[in-house]
């Protein structure tokens, strides 16, 4: 019925154990179709890359999955549960945590505080327990401080613990952001350009950290990145998005040599 289905080839749901499934996800802004029945799945325990030329709809897809945009059609499943249309905070509490392309600086908070805030549903997030059970509140905060310290040393930024967040460099912010996301003990991490604007040395380090989080902690990762070398090296499989549709999905080698991908990047000569 839909013309686009004819040339639709990428994005299969035939995974052994998909943790995140996106089915026929659709979103239009005015006349622009930002997500055009996008379909793909992320295997549990994988690092899946999401690439595509500018305007392909990668960030829109992230916003749809994480609940910041409401889709016009289609569905998102986390495990067996449909999360379409849930609020961002509800989705986050289910274990899907996203980062942002340009992290804003947390005015008035130190680095360790910006980590402390991350876990949802802390006792001290309600006002009454502050006076009715003060020791349980401080005990939990104390535990989280330990956890924050561990994560800061894992990311080798423990020396920044009491620095005001606004004074960090771009690269440090990216590390803090990853550490903060890990504070929530996520099942799936959606990373939106984790190495944009980061120097090559730190880029290497970030790749290593993401790999370790995946291998040691079993975190499933879906990441957007423009740096081809970085993403081809880190992610497998890779999903290629073009004009809101999944164009191809495959191993880095397969994607690299696929004519359709080359065409998409060279400027829409697919027709």
């Amino acid at each position, binding site marked *: 019925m839909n013309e686009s289905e004819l040339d639709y080839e990428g994005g299969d749901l035939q995974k052994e154990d998909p943790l995140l499934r996106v089915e026929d996800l659709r979103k239009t802004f005015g006349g622009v179709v930002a997500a055009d029945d996008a379909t793909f799945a992320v295997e549990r325990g994988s690092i899946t890359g999401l690439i595509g030329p500018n305007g392909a709809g990668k960030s829109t897809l992230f916003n749809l999955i994480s609940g910041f945009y409401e889709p016009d059609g289609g569905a998102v499943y986390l495990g067996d549960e449909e999360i379409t249309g849930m609020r961002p905070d509800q989705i986050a509490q289910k274990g899907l945590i996203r980062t942002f392309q340009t992290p804003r600086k947390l005015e*008035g908070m130190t680095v360790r*505080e910006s980590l402390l805030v991350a876990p*949802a549903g802390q006792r*001290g997030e309600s006002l009454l327990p*502050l006076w009715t059970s003060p020791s349980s509140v*401080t005990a939990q905060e104390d535990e989280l401080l330990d956890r924050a310290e561990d994560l800061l040393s894992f990311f080798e930024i423990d020396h920044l613990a*009491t620095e005001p967040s606004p004074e960090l460099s771009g690269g440090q912010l990216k590390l803090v952001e990853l550490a903060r996301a890990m504070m929530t003990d996520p099942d799936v991490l959606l990373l939106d350009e984790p190495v944009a604007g980061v120097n090559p040395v730190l880029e290497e380090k970030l790749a290593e950290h993401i790999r370790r989080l995946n291998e040691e902690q079993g975190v499933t990762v879906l990441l957007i990145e423009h740096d081809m070398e970085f993403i081809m090296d880190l992610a497998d499989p890779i999903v290629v998005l073009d004009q809101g549709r999944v164009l191809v999905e495959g191993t880095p080698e397969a994607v690299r040599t696929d004519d359709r991908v080359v065409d998409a990047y060279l400027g829409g000569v697919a027709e």
Partner: protein
Amino acid sequence: MTDGQSFLQSPIGATRGWWDDLETEERNTIVGLAVFGGLLLAATAVGILNPTYLLYLLTLAGMFTLMTLGLNVQWGYTGLVNFSVIAFWGIGAYSAAMVTAERSPLGWELHPVWGVVVAVVASALLATLIAVPTLRLRADYLAIATLGFAEIVRMVINNERAYTNGSAGIPGIPSVAEWVESPDLVSFLTIALLVAVVYLVLRRAQLSPWGRVQRTIRADEDLAQALGKNTFRFKLQSFVLGSVIMALAGVAYVHLITPLITPTGLEPIRTFYVWIGIILGGSGSNRGAVVGGLTIVAIRQAPSFIRNQLLNVPAIAPYVSEINVGALRLFLVGVLVILIVRYRSSGLLPPKREHIWSKTLEDRS
């Protein structure tokens, strides 16, 4: 000998250590407040300032401090723009007046405790009513809605004569003066206690995970949501909490300061005095809010007081009598705002750089 010396020295040493630990802003503010307080006491001692008037000023400062503390929760913690500060103050003042005053059109004459209860419930309900539809929108809508809400409250009070007596206001509100020997001192002590309790409660809240979520919302609401925080719930709590404190300031006004409330007390300009108070003190800082509250009263009262004093000097009295105090007040406010923005854009006592409850940190060592 040595024991005696250490006994003598330790408190001084402790004080010195405390002083050395302070930041420059803190020292300057303490010195400033001490000088100002000293001047007030000296003026009282030589008879220029009537002790009753001094206590009245301090009580008034306590009331404004409650309002700045309330606004600091909304704007300083969470970043919510509330332009109906004086409306919530008025809701508190009128709630108390309507249910307790002998000459209230309702004629209930309840005990003032009920005035407090009604004020808290009414302000919490109305704050929720205005917040629920607007907090889901972007920040500017809340600002516009509160600006409109403040006018609605004033108009309703002005026109619903059957409940509020309209522009004549409600006189004869039971005052602390009716029960005690020295009402000024009791008023001051009562409000000082109230400010202290509110301050401690808000400080604990600020240093908690709750406060941390509020700061995250202020800096980046999307991030707070992405971390699983129901930001609507947090913003609603902040807005209602701040508004209830403003209403308490209104209750304190009618029972402790002036047993009469009229709609002219709800002039929108007073909202902006409170805003100037927290901008001057330092948004997000409770100590700053207290300094801001004191400063508001100083700005509002000093011009007329000084003018009256100068009128006693025959040589300059004719010139002084030409001065329009209302205009001078606004002029001073303008100059002050320019000076703050130019030299101290984060306020006299900006918030500390880290907010973790000290008990939590102590547990670790």
